Structure formats: C-alpha cells, structure tokens
C-alpha cells in the first residue's frame, strides 16, 4: 500500500482522541477570533498598556457570552419562561441537522469508493427542480403527493450523479471538475425555470425568480405540532443513516463499492466492473443528496428561490470528513453543525457575529482531515492503520 493511501485510511479511521483534540482546538482558535474583534475588547485596546486586565476581562466575557448564546440557541434555552421556547432550540438543531446528515451520507459514500463528490450543490438543485415541479404544478392526494415529490427529487439528483459517474468512467474526466461545472449549470437552469411563468415562476409573480410555496399536500408534516418547526426530515435522515450503514457494511453492493475504493486494480482483477461501479456509486451518493433536496424543497411553506440549496452540498463535505464517512459519525457531525446553524441567531443577538462558527467548523475539519498535522502539534504516536 502506498504511503498516501495510508494517510487517507487514517482520516477514515479517525481515532476519538484526535477528533476530541480537533474539536477543542477549533473552539479555542474560534474563541480568539471572537474575543479579538468584539466591540468591548476593541474599545479596551486603547488602554491596554495601562489596564491590561480590562482587555482580558472583556475578552473572557465575550467568549462566555458567545458560547452561552450558542448553547441557549441550539440545545435548551435556560432563560425561557415557557416550555415551548425552552425546548425549541434543540428541535431547531434537529431540523437543521437533517439535510446535513442526508447530504453528508452522500458525500461519505463517494469517499468510500474513492470519489470526491463536490457536486452536492448541483445534484441538490436538480433534485429541487424536480421536487418543486411536482410540489407546485401537480395536484395529488395528501401523502402520495409528498412521496412522489420526494422520489422525484431523489431520482433527479441520482440522475445528475450518474451522469458524473458516466463521464468519469467513459472519458476519464475528473469528477471534481465535472461536478463543479455541473453545479453552475444546474443553478442557472433552475433559475431559468424559476423565471418562466409556464415553468416554475410563482403565480402572479413579478420579475424575481421565485416559485410558489409547495402544495400543502406535499409539505413535510410537522412532528411536534405547529409550535415547533421540526418536520419529517430528521426521521428521514436517521432512516437514511441506517440504510447507509446496511448498504456499506452489510450488502454486496457496498462490498463492491468499498473494494473499488480500497484498490481499484484489485477490484478489477476480482471481476468487478470499475466503470459500472463509478456510475452506480455516484448515482447512490447523489440519491442521498437528493433526500436533502427534498428536505429543503418540501420542508418550507413559502416560495423557493435558487438559494434554497443553502450551500448544504459544500457543508456536507465537512460533515463527511468529520464523521469519518461512517453512518454514526456523520449523524454526530451533522448534529454538531446543525447546532451551529441553530445557534447563530442567538449569537447575533448577543453581538457576536455567528460567522465565527464557520471558522470553527472549517478548523475542526481541517485538523481532523490532516492527521499528521495534529500529530505533529501534539507529538502523538502514529495511529495503527489496519
């Protein structure tokens, strides 16, 4: 096995110790950003040399405030006076984690086959195009409508993924470039559809590319009544994680996928068609991302614009890397980054720019994805790689 393969394996293996260090380090560096640029700290810089204590006190206060707001906004709001607003944060975390988990599973599947699916955005947008068509331009009975829209989203996304796999298998085009180009093609195509009155433009809509809200029969049902936004998405995400686990760890198809990922030449020698595996793997990877598209498109009760994909396709890469491409890891990583999204507004109210969470998110994954880096910083022993 070559040295570089070992490094990739090491990322996948992901020892708990290293992940814990990465998370802590991410939060620590994030705190520095948070403190150094907060208004109260900046104001104290002028008197830093006479009263340095003020600066450190202000910095400490900012960090405590920021993380308290993150906790209150994403887990349990301890300042709330009624149970609904007390427990709403955790339901928001679950709601926002759902698409990250689904898309993260898709990207993970690609990693396991040795494919880097950067095209989550494009695949999601194609799924959204299909789902929005079904949910706004067709009428069906309650329940069936939602299922059909969901399936169409998955099929559209999977088709886009299969195209990538086909181009890679047939022409050798690298999937990273193909998926990035398809991202832009898909977004422009969706925007075009959203602009046309006889395609997806909202009824009586003006110049803005925006669709009707999805039909009531197609919307994801709310799980905990109407005082919470939490919908079917999280159930689907957990279900998807189980399917992913079974597919990758227990099924024959998954075995083929993993074999191609481990060593494509050996897989070929063993009689597995590598090109065919690429097409299927990209299609299944994109199918999971299609679920996330359905979650975005059917989990809303207002009209959709092209930005509804919310960069989940890219966030999913960080989820997959942090989760080590395993079902359980992806669920936990999705929940963590979902909590970041849920806690953002609360931090904003406290005067801490929630964008700092983007820095923390990137740093955590950077440290996880660069095992030699963490090892070098903390002089850890080299992890055993099977």
């Amino acid at each position, binding site marked *: 096995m070559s040295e570089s393969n070992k490094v990739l394996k090491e990322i996948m293996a992901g020892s708990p110790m290293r992940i814990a260090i990465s998370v802590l380090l991410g939060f620590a560096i994030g705190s520095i950003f948070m403190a150094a640029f907060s208004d109260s700290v900046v104001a104290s810089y002028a008197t830093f040399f006479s009263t340095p204590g003020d600066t450190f006190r202000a910095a400490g206060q900012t960090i405590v405030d920021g993380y308290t707001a993150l906790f209150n906004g994403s887990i349990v709001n301890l300042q709330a006076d009624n149970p609904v607003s007390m427990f709403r944060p955790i339901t928001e975390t679950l709601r926002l984690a759902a698409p990250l988990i689904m898309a993260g599973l898709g990207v993970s599947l690609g990693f396991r086959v040795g494919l880097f699916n950067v095209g989550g955005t494009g695949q999601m947008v194609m799924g959204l195009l299909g789902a929005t068509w079904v949910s706004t331009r067709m009428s069906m009975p309650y329940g069936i409508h939602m299922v059909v829209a969901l399936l169409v989203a998955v099929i559209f996304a999977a088709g886009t993924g299969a195209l990538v796999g086909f*181009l890679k298998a047939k022409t050798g085009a690298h999937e990273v470039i*193909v998926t990035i180009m398809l991202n832009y093609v898909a977004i422009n*195509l969706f925007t075009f559809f959203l602009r046309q009155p006889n395609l997806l433009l909202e009824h009586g809509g003006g110049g803005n590319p925006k669709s009707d809200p999805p039909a009531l029969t197609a919307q994801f049902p709310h799980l905990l009544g109407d005082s919470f936004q939490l919908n079917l998405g999280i159930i689907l995400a957990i279900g998807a994680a189980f399917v992913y686990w079974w597919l990758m760890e227990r099924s024959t198809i998954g075995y083929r996928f993993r074999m191609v990922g481990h060593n494509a030449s050996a897989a070929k020698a063993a009689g597995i068609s590598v090109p065919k595996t690429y097409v299927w793997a990209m299609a299944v990877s994109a199918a999971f991302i299609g679920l996330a598209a359905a979650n975005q498109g059917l989990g809303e009760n207002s009209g959709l614009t092209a930005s509804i994909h919310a960069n989940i396709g890219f966030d999913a890469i960080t989820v997959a890397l942090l989760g080590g491409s395993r079902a359980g890891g992806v669920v936990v990583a999705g929940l963590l980054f979902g909590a970041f999204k849920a806690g953002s507004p609360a931090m904003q109210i406290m005067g801490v720019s929630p964008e*700092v969470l983007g*820095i923390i998110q990137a740093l955590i994954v950077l440290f996880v994805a660069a095992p*030699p880096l963490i090892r070098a910083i903390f002089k850890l022993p080299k992890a055993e790689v099977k």
Partner: protein
Amino acid sequence: MAKVEVTPGMFSKSEVAPSWKTPIVLAFFAVLVLVSFGFLGKPGNVDYSLSNKGDIFAVPDFVISSVGINIGLGIAMLVIAGISAALTLQKRKTPLWLTLIAGLAGAFGLLGWLASGKQVPVSFILGSAVVLAVPIILGALGGLMSERVGVVNIAIEGQLLTGAFMASVVGTITHNLYFGALAAMIASAILSMALASLAIKYLVDQIIIGVLINVLVVGITNFLYSQWLSVAGEQVNFPGTFDVISIPYLSALPVIGPAFFSARITVYLTFVLVPLVWFILFRTKLGLRARAVGEHPTAADTVGINVGRTRFWWVTSGGAIAGLGGAALTIGNVGAFGREMSGGLGFIALAVVILGRWQPFYVAASALLFGFAIILRVWANGVAPGIPTDFITMVPYLVTLIAVAGFAGKVRAPAASGQPYIKG
C-alpha cells in the same frame, strides 16, 4: 519503495489520434449561427460602434443587417469546420487558434443578433470583459503554476478572496494601494505555503485540503466582514481603485485602444505576467525543472532536482499571483471588499486552467471567454430583454464540461498532478 504510478493525466484521458469531436462541435455552432441568428434571425440593422468619440483614428461605425452578418459569419464558421474535418481526415490536429477564430466569429454574430436595430459598443464590451477576466486569468495562472509541478490547487477561490480582503484593508489603512496589492500577494502566498506544506510534507489529500482552505477563508473573511469591516467601513474598507492609465498613442487605436490600453495597472500587470510565466515555464532551465517535477517526479529526483522544494516554491509564487488577482477584484475594479465577493471565480479559474490546456496564453484566452460571458449577460439584459440570459451564463461551463470530457481533442494534465511524491 513507494511506487509512483504515471497515469495518463489526472483530469482527462489523453487522446492519441485527433478525434472527430472538434469538427462536429464546430459545425454544430456554425449551423446554430447560420440558421438561428442568420436565416431565422431578427430583421433590422446592427451598428457595431468601433471607436469612441475623440479618438484620433476615428473609425466609422460598422453598420450591417443583423441577418446578413450572421449568414456571412455562419458560412465562415462552416468553412473552418470544413478545414478542421479535412485536417482530421489527414490525421492532423485542429490548431487551437482556428477554434478560437470560430469562437470569436460566433461571439460577434451573437452580439449582432442580440442588438439588431441597436448599437453594439464593441470596445466597451471588450474592455469590460478584460477587466472581469483579470482575476480569473491571475487565479488561473496561479493554479497552472501549481499544477505544472504536480500539486492540484482547488484553493484558488480562497486565494482570490484573501487577496481581495487584504488589498482592501491594507490599502485603506496605509492609504497606499501598492501596499494593499503587496499585502494581498503576501497573504495569499502564505496561504499557499500552508497548502503546499500540508500537501507535500504531510501528504494530506490535495483536493480535500484545497476545499477546506476555501471553507476556512470564507469563514474568516465573512466573520471579519460582519464584525469589523461593516462596522468601521470608512476606516478599513474604503480603499478606492488604482487610476486608469492611458498609454499614449496605443490607447487611441480603434476598438482595442480603449479596451486594452486605457486600463488600470492590474490589467497591465496581467499583460506582463502571462507571457512571463510562459517564458519561465517553457524557455528557462527553471521551467524545465518544474515541468519535469510535474510530469515524472521520480525521474526529476533521480537527476538531482529537489521535488519537494520545487513544488513548494512554485505553489507559493502561484499563490502570490492569485493574490494579485484578488487585489484586482477590489482595488482594481470595485473599490471595496464585499462578502464572498470572489463568488466562484476561483472555481472558474480552475476550469480555465483545463480549458487552456495548462498553457498560459490559452488560459488567458479561455478566461476572456468567461469574462465575455459575464459582461454579455449584463449587457444583453439591457439591450434585448426577455432573452434567457441564464443560458448565456451557462455556456462557458458547458464548454468546459465538453473540453474536460475530451471532446475538444487532446487535453492532458501534467502526469503527476495530484499525486504526492514520496521519496523511495
């Protein structure tokens, strides 16, 4: 002993014999221009305005019927497709400049079709396309330098964003835009050093690290923008832009004068850097060594070239150039930093490297195609409302897809691109 596999290109298979795809694609676009813009085109004359008022060599406007010019251009493009087919029959490749001429003819026809009954400000469109293409060209030059030595650089987007941010902030604080540009180059070079050392020394997957650097830079600039720049904009994010320098005599030339020779220093620097990178890469010992490292690191190592060090410094200097591209976004065009203002230009640059076949001049030409598509969309919205401009925006991406999938003939990346080198 680690075995370094030499695969036929990371991004696309090499093609030995010229394929029929080039003439077919050329013929398709020729027929498109001839039929949809020509025979089925819009009636009325189109007025190609070739020089600005006050030019020394004032050239009269070129007025012609929209249908007529497109029929003429369509036939010319058919002839080029025919030449390409004849060359393919003789098992010869279609030269890229021929394809470029066909592309230019098609673009000229598209302008004429869009603006039937109206005026086409040719030098304005060309000039705007150049200004918009500069960040893409410089970003792509950085990516090219990195890929030529065997390191895939997905982080161009992050480098552009870093450059744009630093140029604006440092330029404002020091009241000197040259310091701003310098800071942009240094910051982006440092970012490249991180990419290079993680990829070369720590053998982290180059694509993963590139994606993560992008995410990190977006996070940091977004945070600083909302926490700092948007609050204290006057003091830290108000740099202004470089002055427009008109080169005497040259700027008075019709069409190309105002487009190319009445521009900001960032544009002129690009004019210098493209041939410079080409010269170093293909005409000096330094460039030969770099290409050897990118094509066959084991062989390069055997003859005594330090693979790691070569890769490190080429990636780093490429980053500096990409940083200048970022500076061109703020102090070379807009005049202030905006949230995520690179908006995918780094990914376009990535595509442009491939479309331009890892050759500086072709890369610059491909970047102009994207610049042209961006300005065309803006202009078409005004001159011909109702045209689905989303499709105009889509064209360069589709062209890249076709090129990557091998339809444009021989597209081959440096053989060792994307592969870490482990000394055996």
